[in-house]
């Protein structure tokens, strides 16, 4: 006997589900700072996500118009505060481009050491916090244990542990102290075997794989359309890394270094490291791949630091060329993007002949990476939203500037 929709035995018929607006954040532990998401939900399914940002806005660009470039360096620290060194580097290179300043060889290799250590430290937080988002606490502690050692190294080099202002226009504020390289090598030797622990804790963890594989799939064309960069773009299989491509002023830093851009080509990741295989549930461009790219970049950065130490120890010359605090800027404008841990961090400067820039602009990588969120969250479950936000690895300080 067929049952019609008006049959009294079907009690669900009258249970209507309405759309509901759920407010997530700005004070929510899994939104990485002060991000507010408004979810339009139908039961557990999210039909629309609207990010609201700006809670950390300080108008750093306006401040930049009132300070000399060297004075603005501490403000760049506070953009992506988990990778302050890489922010310093981006701004320093942009100003050097405008001033047509060549930096000594030693400073070049010093910058590679510092920038790649910064990348490792940043990815460790990204990894640990991602575990936290998905409900596992221990990877966070393991990640911070190792990050602490990098911060110790940075403290030895410049005295600060979070906001460094170390890499500056013309090179770095100080040379590396005696014995620093040895300490750095000791750290790397100790760090490499530990990476396997991370893979055991997360990458190959069955729960982790089920929470991330096939979730939040970002196709390559959409990633490019939304201006996504860094591990988010490479996780979608786009072979693009500013350290190899684009502008000479930045790529010359990595001239002669052997490294391969981490992304999946023809279904395979580069084969020069030992790491667990891709699980069968994972789809290119999903949360798992974005996470995996970061993990492989950590291994690669270790390799780059080792190469840089070799070069640095044989390089001659000073660690910086002197640049006055109120050095006059030439008339003109310069735009430069660097490969920061979270994507392409761009700086734009307009000089008018005075020591203070007419315009200082920061193009944030996370800003663009976050803008794709409404697209990839459409139709996912509420519980998947933190997993997707976490996989984008955003830092609100950089988005809001």
């Amino acid at each position, binding site marked *: 006997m067929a049952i019609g929709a008006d049959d009294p035995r079907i009690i669900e018929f009258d249970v209507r589900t309405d759309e509901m607006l759920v407010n997530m954040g700005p004070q929510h532990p899994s939104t990485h700072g002060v991000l507010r998401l408004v979810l339009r939900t139908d039961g557990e399914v999210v039909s629309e996500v609207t990010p609201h940002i700006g809670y950390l806005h300080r108008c750093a660009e306006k401040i930049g118009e009132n300070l000399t470039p060297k004075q603005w360096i501490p403000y760049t620290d506070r953009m992506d505060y988990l990778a302050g060194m890489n922010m310093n580097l981006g701004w320093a290179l942009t100003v050097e481009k405008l001033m047509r300043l060549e930096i000594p060889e030693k400073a070049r290799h010093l910058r590679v050491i510092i920038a790649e250590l910064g990348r490792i430290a940043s990815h460790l937080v990204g990894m640990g916090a991602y575990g936290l988002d998905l409900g596992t606490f221990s990877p966070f502690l393991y990640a911070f244990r190792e990050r602490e050692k990098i911060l110790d190294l940075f403290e030895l080099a410049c005295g600060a542990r979070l906001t460094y202002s170390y890499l500056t226009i013309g090179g770095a504020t100080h040379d590396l102290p005696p014995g620093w390289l040895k300490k750095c090598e000791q750290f790397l030797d100790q760090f490499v075997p530990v990476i396997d622990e991370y893979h055991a804790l997360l990458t190959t963890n069955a729960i982790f794989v089920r929470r991330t594989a096939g979730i939040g799939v970002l196709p390559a064309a959409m990633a490019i359309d939304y*201006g996504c960069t860094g591990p988010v773009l490479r996780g979608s299989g*786009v072979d693009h890394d500013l350290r190899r491509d684009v502008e000479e002023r930045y790529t010359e830093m990595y001239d002669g270094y052997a490294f391969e851009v981490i992304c999946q080509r023809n279904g395979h990741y580069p084969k020069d490291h030992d790491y667990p295989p891709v699980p069968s549930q994972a789809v290119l461009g999903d949360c798992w791949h974005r996470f995996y790219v970061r993990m492989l970049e950590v291994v690669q950065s270790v390799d780059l630091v080792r190469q840089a130490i070799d070069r640095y120890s044989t390089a001659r010359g000073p660690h910086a060329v002197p640049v006055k605090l109120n050095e006059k800027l030439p008339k003109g404008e310069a735009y430069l993007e660097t490969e920061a841990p979270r994507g392409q961090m761009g700086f734009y400067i307009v000089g008018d002949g005075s020591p203070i820039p007419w315009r200082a602009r920061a193009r944030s990588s996370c800003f663009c990476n976050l803008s794709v969120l409404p697209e990839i969250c459409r139709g996912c479950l509420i519980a998947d939203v933190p997993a997707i936000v976490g996989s984008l690895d955003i830092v609100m300080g950089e988005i809001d500037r």
Partner: protein
Amino acid sequence: MSGQAFVERLKQRFGSGIRGAQLEALDPWIEVAPEALVEVCTYLRDQPDLRFTMLNCITAVDYFEPDPKKAAKVGWEPHLELVYHLWSFQNKASLVLKVMLPRWKGDVPGELPEVPSVAGVWSTANWHEREVYDLSGVWFVGHPDLRRILCPEDWVGHPLRKDYEMPLEYHGIRGR
């Protein structure tokens, strides 16, 4: 393709839509007329030999000197510049477009200058244009959802304008 040949090609295609170019600059740029902007951008994105598929950044620069003594010496008329940084994965090449706008529409202070939105060409532009509108005060015609993004919705003024004045007070919070 050399810079000159490229500019000639665009000029042939768009005529007065291409207003000029500065090829000696550190980052060479091409000036586009506001009314031709969407057409030029679509062309740059879709031509099989160009494929500028990524928009890196949109910046607005306010050229205005509030100090009349200094203003006599600056060498430019007050105006707003929009700078678009594009990138082509295929050619590994970047391109800079500029659009010159008056500071105020019809020179009436407070009336925002208008420019067509390129959010339909690159989705990146959606948030970037909101940011430019918020901080520099440019109205993007045809933008799907043009509202403030970084400042609160009830904020007054556009902070990156050179004649912007910090508010004395905002919801009981003292400014200046």
